[in-house]
């Protein structure tokens, strides 16, 4: 009897999970294998793929004129964006966590940029960054700084794009806020009774309890930003020069503008490895700073 019940339970479970399993297998793990497989061939979308072994990779690392710059641009952008948006969103979440009037209103306000469509955001910001009549150069002129080419100069373009990413990081704020609200009250009260001041409570209780959330946000924003492609698609076309030609954008250009599908697969796989290395490093170091309340669920 119980056996039969369990069987029917399992049947329901598989039925419920069927779409997700199809998604995982057909849309995620098989394509992952395929991207590596395809990168070992030479194929431009027509004809029979030709086996070339690791030649695509050799070419990428030795002769490709854009590849190294693309890696640098991607890592630089990801670094600025991750650090900037982590600091910004943690700070805002901290403020929003206090008992203040109109909290819901402020929360909605800081989240707002995140719900705007990316294309519109970048077009809007390109006007703000406009060299002669844009908002930012106007604000700079008020404090006596000379005009800056934000998007037009290869030195400024990456920091300028990273600033937009920071502005868009409302989702991190919400997750931090959720984390703050899950810090056990009991710890706080106990510390207060023991005479810990607000500063001590923050550093000794809030932050340690928050480390898993910080880790999660750090990991997710790192993965997202290392895949950056939208600003290049929407705003810069990889320029000026190739200073904002991110790895994913380079892949897009090779695959969909030049038709070099298998070569682009090699870039995709390198990008996968790059993100994998960063993820592993983050996981490995997390043991030293992540606080765990003992026992996982």
């Amino acid at each position, binding site marked *: 009897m119980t056996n039969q019940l*369990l069987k*029917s339970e*399992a049947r*329901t*479970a598989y039925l*419920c*999970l069927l*779409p*997700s399993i*199809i998604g995982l297998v057909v*849309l*995620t*793990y098989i*394509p*992952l294998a395929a991207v590596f497989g*395809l990168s070992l061939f030479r194929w431009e979308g027509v004809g029979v793929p030709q086996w070339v072994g690791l030649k695509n990779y050799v070419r990428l690392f030795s002769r490709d004129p854009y590849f190294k710059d693309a890696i640098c641009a991607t890592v630089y952008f990801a670094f600025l964006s991750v650090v900037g948006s982590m600091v910004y969103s943690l700070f805002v979440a901290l*403020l929003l966590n*206090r008992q*203040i*009037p109109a909290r819901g209103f402020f*929360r*909605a306000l*800081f*989240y*707002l*940029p*995140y*719900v705007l*469509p*990316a*294309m*519109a955001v970048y*077009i*809007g*910001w390109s*006007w*703000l960054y406009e060299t*002669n*009549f844009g*908002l930012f150069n106007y604000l700079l002129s008020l404090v006596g700084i000379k005009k800056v080419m934000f998007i037009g100069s290869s030195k400024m373009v990456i920091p300028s794009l990273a600033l937009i990413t920071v502005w868009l990081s409302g989702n991190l704020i*919400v*997750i931090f*806020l*959720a*984390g703050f*609200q*899950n810090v056990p009250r009991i710890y706080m009260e106990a510390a207060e009774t023991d005479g810990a001041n607000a500063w001590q409570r923050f550093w000794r209780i809030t932050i340690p309890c928050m480390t898993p959330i910080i880790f*999660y946000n750090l990991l997710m924003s790192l*993965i997202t930003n290392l*895949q950056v*492609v*939208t600003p290049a698609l929407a705003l810069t076309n990889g320029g000026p020069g190739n200073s904002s030609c991110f790895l994913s954008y380079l892949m897009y250009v090779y*695959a*969909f503008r030049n038709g070099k*599908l298998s070569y682009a*697969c090699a870039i*995709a796989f390198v*990008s996968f490895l790059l*993100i994998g290395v960063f993820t592993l490093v983050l996981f490995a170091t997390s043991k030293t700073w992540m606080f765990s309340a003992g026992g996982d*669920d």
Partner: protein
Amino acid sequence: MARNLKSKKRQERIANHVTLVVLMVLSAIVMLPIWWIFRSSLMSNGELFEWPPTFLPKRWLFSNYKKTLEFYPFWKYLKNTMTIILPAVLGGTITATMGGYAFARLRFPGKKFLFSLCIGSMLLPTMVTLIPLYIMWTRGLNLVDSYLPLILPYFCGGGAFNIFLIRQFISTIPRELDEAATIDGAGHFRILVSIIMPAIKSAMIVVALLLFIQMWNDLLQQIIYINSDSKFTIAIGLSQFKGSLKSDWSAIMCATCMSFVPGVVFYLLGQKYFVEGIVMTGMKN
């Protein structure tokens, strides 16, 4: 002791005032870009290219919008975008709920393995699988210039994060509820539909909103899969529009502002559930 408590209360009050002021300044800074874009959409081009620029338009030219709509088919683009987004959001929310339910409540062989596959895929960059999927949809299934490659993936679980979110949320609901229903003879599907789903409404709204935003922002895939003008979405349409106008910034800003609206409306509708939804999941790991 009483005095101590009083001064502490005062301290707290001062801290809250300071917080409020800092928040007001910060939110003004955060809103400034949106205001600037909006104010630009109400100016004439002559006024836009004046120095120094002003924060308020001299005259609020709402007629700019009417003029822009004459050569920018916003409604068509909106309709196209919604044709993709609505079914995808629906499919993603439902399949994520089903998956989350199975992981949270049901016992079956291979559960741990499947769950780690699922969480593992969260770490997997979507860019990596782009080309094989493109080949599969356009060569394998011959879906060229079609919305289906953009919609169908969302019927396959709606993403690992969303499944995880639903699972966490369901685990906060007391099991006694399901057990009572089981005794009354309800099957697992009945429990899911008539007990679990009403109880996790806010989590489902969060998932729907997250999916909406995700698709809204997915410029790359839209560019790859959609070719013909008549099928353009807001994102592609906007970039075409900007490319064709170059320096008519007033019209470009009108088009930009218009495309802000649907996301904001959708967000404001679901806002109430949003943070509470994420808080409830307990996002602990």
